[in-house]
């Protein structure tokens, strides 16, 4: 997924991208992933993985996602909202 503006990206695109990262980089079983899947309880992700996930998303969007939001992340939807809001705000 190349760096894009929020106009070009739908929520579906964003979620797909996150799922792709989880499957390819974190060995998460794609069949277990739902939009409201809890990263920690259901997908075997921990806080360090969340940091690594955010770093990968930083590379995608070309800027650092706000670090104060990391601790709010629980589900894939939370990550998608963070990404979408950050793209909308431009940082």
């Amino acid at each position, binding site marked *: 997924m190349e760096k894009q503006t929020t106009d070009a990206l739908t929520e579906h695109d964003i979620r797909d991208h996150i799922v792709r990262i989880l499957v390819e980089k974190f060995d998460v079983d794609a069949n277990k992933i739902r939009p409201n899947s809890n990263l920690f309880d259901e997908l075997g992700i921990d*806080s*360090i*993985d969340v940091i690594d996930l*955010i*770093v990968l998303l*930083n590379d995608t969007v070309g800027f*650092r996602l706000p*670090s104060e939001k*990391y601790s709010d992340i629980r589900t894939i939807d939370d990550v998608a909202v963070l990404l979408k809001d950050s793209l909308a705000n431009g940082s």
Partner: protein
Amino acid sequence: MLAFALFGTISLVLSIVVFPLFWIIVRNRTYRSTISRDLVSTCFGLLIQVVNRLGVLRYSITGDEKIQGLSGCLILANHPSLIDAVFLLYMFCDANVVAKHTLFSNPFTMVTARVLNYIPNRDPSFMMEECIQRLKAGQNLVVFPEGTRSVPGQPLRFSRGAATIAIRARASCLPVSIQCIPPVLTKTMPWYRIPKKRVSFIVEVLDLIDVRKFVENSPNEKMASIALNDYLRDVLSQDAISDIASDNLG
């Protein structure tokens, strides 16, 4: 109370007078942080001696011969009390520390945090990367894997962060076991609640851990860090005080 007053005075003089002077006069960042950390180590060493002589606290440090020549090492300790930091900064005078990011913006502490060149914990990804880079550069780093003080009577809960840093930096780990008997300045105890019995503070520097074996025996770095994290937690969860440590209480 005298011990608190002494600690407060030392901290005040350093943060308001000495470190601002260093900030202005000593322009070389590396040299400035080195002499500042040496000064903190010296002051904390003196503080420990004073409170010991006053009969407030007796202490034992064993295994400190393992500190000689340490380079690029991650020093990990359990964290029962606020006093832990005093001993660790005394023992590991050149080590980096991860500090609360608010210290870097608080007018009373910002100069101190910058002069000592500590690592702010505001951005987790930046913090981890900075820790890894400093370890790779041969610097030592002190961390509390729990991230906060232990809750007395509860099992140690280690975040995987420290182990991840060690694995990614391929940095040896030096576990330091700390016991505070009776508990004082714990997470659940108000700071003014001072035990009637003299506090025994026991610090044991344990054997160096080569993380390469964890990397070699694991399919990926995440599994290696989980294995290392579990091992460190087990090592630092030992309740028993060794005979050598208790015999050395002074």
